[in-house]
């Protein structure tokens, strides 16, 4: 799956991931391959994902995530690595 994490200042991450989980506004959830298309608001919390190098964790301060056709886009105003 392709994952993009974007803030207004810059693109934080772009790359291939096998798994990603998000702090959804109504509880956290995980996205795996072939997830149904979803748009979800994000609460403040941890975004984590696993790519070839291992697991990464960052903290977002709200935002929104869109998943479609194995392409995940995270829009956050602020990301703390």
């Amino acid at each position: 799956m392709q994952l993009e994490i974007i803030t207004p200042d810059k693109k934080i991450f772009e790359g291939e991931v096998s798994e990603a989980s998000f702090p959804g506004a109504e509880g956290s959830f995980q996205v795996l391959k072939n997830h149904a298309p979803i748009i979800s608001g994000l609460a403040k919390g941890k975004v984590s994902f696993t790519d070839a190098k291992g697991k990464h964790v960052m903290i977002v301060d709200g935002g929104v995530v869109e998943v479609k056709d194995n392409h995940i886009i995270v829009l956050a105003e602020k990301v703390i690595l």
Partner: protein
Amino acid sequence: MANLKEVKERINSVSSTQQITKAMKMVAAAKLRKAQDKIVQMRPYAQKLAAILNNISSGTEGDTDIVYAKERPVKKVLFIPVTSDKGLCGAFNSNILKGTAYLIENRYQDQLVTVMPIGKKAFDFFKKRDNPVINDFYQLFLDVSFENVKNAAEFVMKAYEEERFDKVIIVYNEFKNVATQLVQTEQFLPIERIQGEATDGTAQSEYIVEPSREYLIDELVPNSLKIQFFKAILDSNASEHGARMTAMDKATENANDLLKDLKLVYNRTRQAAITNEILEIVAGANALEGSN
């Protein structure tokens, strides 16, 4: 006849001014690149946000009753003129200041106008005038990050929500290209249209939307407002450096012309002095010969 020494001094002073304008041009060019980079960095976020907003808002029927889109009778207007902190950039600042002052005096003379200047030049200009001034954010250009700009945008949005203003207008220089800046008068609030036109309406319904469309619209519309504000600031920032680059380029050119003329005068003066000297010597020699 001009004094040789005076001309020499003028040549020196003009060429040292030219060095400064040249250096300033180079600095502006470097800063312009950085400013343009920032606009490029911001673009993916803005586009994706507009796309997502488009996806969810086109699925809902009718208008949402979001507070930022509600029009009220206009009694209190907030103007946000965006200028630079420093001068020496041609008509960049005066265009904005004149444009804003014109609007205040001619179109909004019956309303209560408050000004929230951004940039030191705008602050200096408006603090001398009659309109009340919000001076919390005029130093925004010290650090043009979203984090920083967001605060200003949030302040304005909150003030609008609390009905302290019924209309918010941003006046800024839009970045067209290095040489051209366009003065834009943009209504920030209330929102004139929710961003993005409705598309064919087929792809949208496939999405699972969590927690609800309304929640997301409530969440994302302020985001896109902040982005709009951020874009105006970034545009103005890039425009400023573009304008300064052009102004300094012109100044360097003018200094060149001036130097050319001065050098001509200098050479002529020098030649005249030499001719004079020779004349005197010859005359002196002749006089000596005559007396022998």
